[in-house]
């Protein structure tokens, strides 16, 4: 892992190591740009993920108190827990299902397609499917999305068989096991799906794409990358000393704590990682 000096103004600081942050970090590192990723969560791995819903929730979910309001059921039953998102290295890419569908052409033009809806501020996207298509293709290849880039689909489980039979009866013409960022065969140094049934608890076979064991180790391999897991508490206690607190992306923790984090947090856990692509 790179040692990046606090005064190095060529380095980019990225907040969060999930789908956006983790991917961006790798892309910048591949271009030779130094990157520091600040991540609020701790580092886990396929080896430490737990095949148990509640224990896993304690391990990777965002447990800080949050609030919700309104009349929906969650506001009544679990007001402090409005969404199952993650606070862990890799962010919610550890937890997501892997479903990777492209928007369809008409969905870029929702306002045009559906007309005005009273009380809503419906808009068309300023871009088209054609403009986005090459980037979709690139993302699908990186993430190993089934039925793209020559990757076979996943085998259907019993649930799929029931859905398939029902959908065919209803007259659907195209019914298949979907476009999933889950390896149907070994790919990119990652194992194929074992049908564990615990996608949401962190994939223990590494078949499902997560920045945790794809983009982040690839970024690390460039030697341009530095990451500080569990960054929130220390960062928040030092933000008053940061130079430009107005912007969250340029808010940097106080010098010594940043060094300590960069030099201690990641290497200690590195040896525990398993099943990486590098």
């Amino acid at each position, binding site marked *: 892992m790179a040692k990046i000096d606090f005064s190095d103004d060529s380095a980019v600081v990225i907040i969060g190591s999930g789908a956006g942050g983790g991917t961006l970090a790798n892309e910048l590192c591949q271009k030779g740009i130094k990157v520091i990723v600040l991540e609020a969560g701790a580092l886990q791995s396929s080896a430490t993920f737990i*095949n148990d819903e509640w224990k896993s929730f304690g391990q990777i979910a965002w447990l800080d108190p949050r609030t919700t309001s309104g009349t929906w059921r969650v506001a009544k039953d679990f007001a402090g827990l409005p969404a199952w998102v993650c606070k862990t290295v890799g962010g919610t890419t550890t937890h997501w299902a892997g479903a990777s569908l492209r928007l369809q052409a008409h969905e870029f033009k929702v306002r045009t397609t559906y007309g005005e809806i009273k009380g809503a501020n419906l808009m068309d996207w300023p871009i088209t499917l054609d403009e986005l298509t090459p980037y979709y293709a690139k993302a699908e290849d990186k993430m190993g999305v089934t039925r793209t880039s020559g990757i076979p*689909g996943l*085998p259907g*489980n019993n649930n*799929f*068989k029931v859905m398939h039979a029902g959908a065919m009866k209803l007259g659907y013409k195209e019914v298949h096991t979907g476009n999933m960022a889950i390896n149907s065969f070994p790919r990119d140094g990652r194992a194929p*799906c074992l*049908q564990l049934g*615990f996608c949401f608890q962190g994939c223990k*076979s590494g078949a499902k794409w997560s920045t945790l064991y794809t983009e982040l180790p690839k970024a690390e391999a460039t030697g341009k990358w530095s990451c500080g897991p569990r960054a929130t508490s220390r960062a928040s206690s030092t933000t008053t000393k940061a130079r430009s607190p107005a912007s969250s992306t340029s808010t940097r923790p106080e010098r010594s704590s940043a060094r300590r984090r960069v030099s201690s947090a990641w290497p200690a856990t590195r040896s525990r990682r398993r099943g990486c692509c590098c």
Partner: protein
Amino acid sequence: MRIFPIESTGHSSAAACGDESGEVPKLDLPLVRREFLKGSGVLVGTLATGSVLALLAPSPVWAVELKTLSKNEGQTLMAMGRVLFPHKKLPDAVYALLAKDLDAKASGDAAAATQLRAGIAALNQAAGGSFATAAPARKLEVVKAMEGQPFFNTVRGQCVTSLYDNDMTFAVLGYPGSSFDKGGYITRGFQDLKWLPAPSREASPQSWAA
């Protein structure tokens, strides 16, 4: 043939326990039982003979220690849990976990203890003395009248994990739990459904393990 002397060879440490002498020395272990009885109350019960759990459990007798609430208060919470989430198949041992977890909450938080005690007292009062021994219809009526109150929400919220996140409930409901240690389901019937026509290879390609 080796012969082991029956009389003591004089060893007294754990390290001396071995194949050579065959002796198992008595160790100076802490008296766990004495610690156990320090609590405020103990809930005990028996698993029904022949039930799934009785077959799995090392002993049909179970016991749950309470640190703050009394045995009676614990039993009242168990009874309320059964009213909120009635499962004929779940033994009292599962509902005792609810009492145990709420007791832990009370032990760590004085306000929670106050709320629980007041709620339990209200249950008993509404039931005309003892909620735990009231008739099922009366219990339901009493709990329904409390719906939406903070005490009600505390108990109901705790039920979600206390009653459903434990091995006993998993076993009773037939939930197999962790699968990674068994290699997942890729070779254990994840697509063994036979009562519907098989989807095409295009819709459902062959598994890498096939």
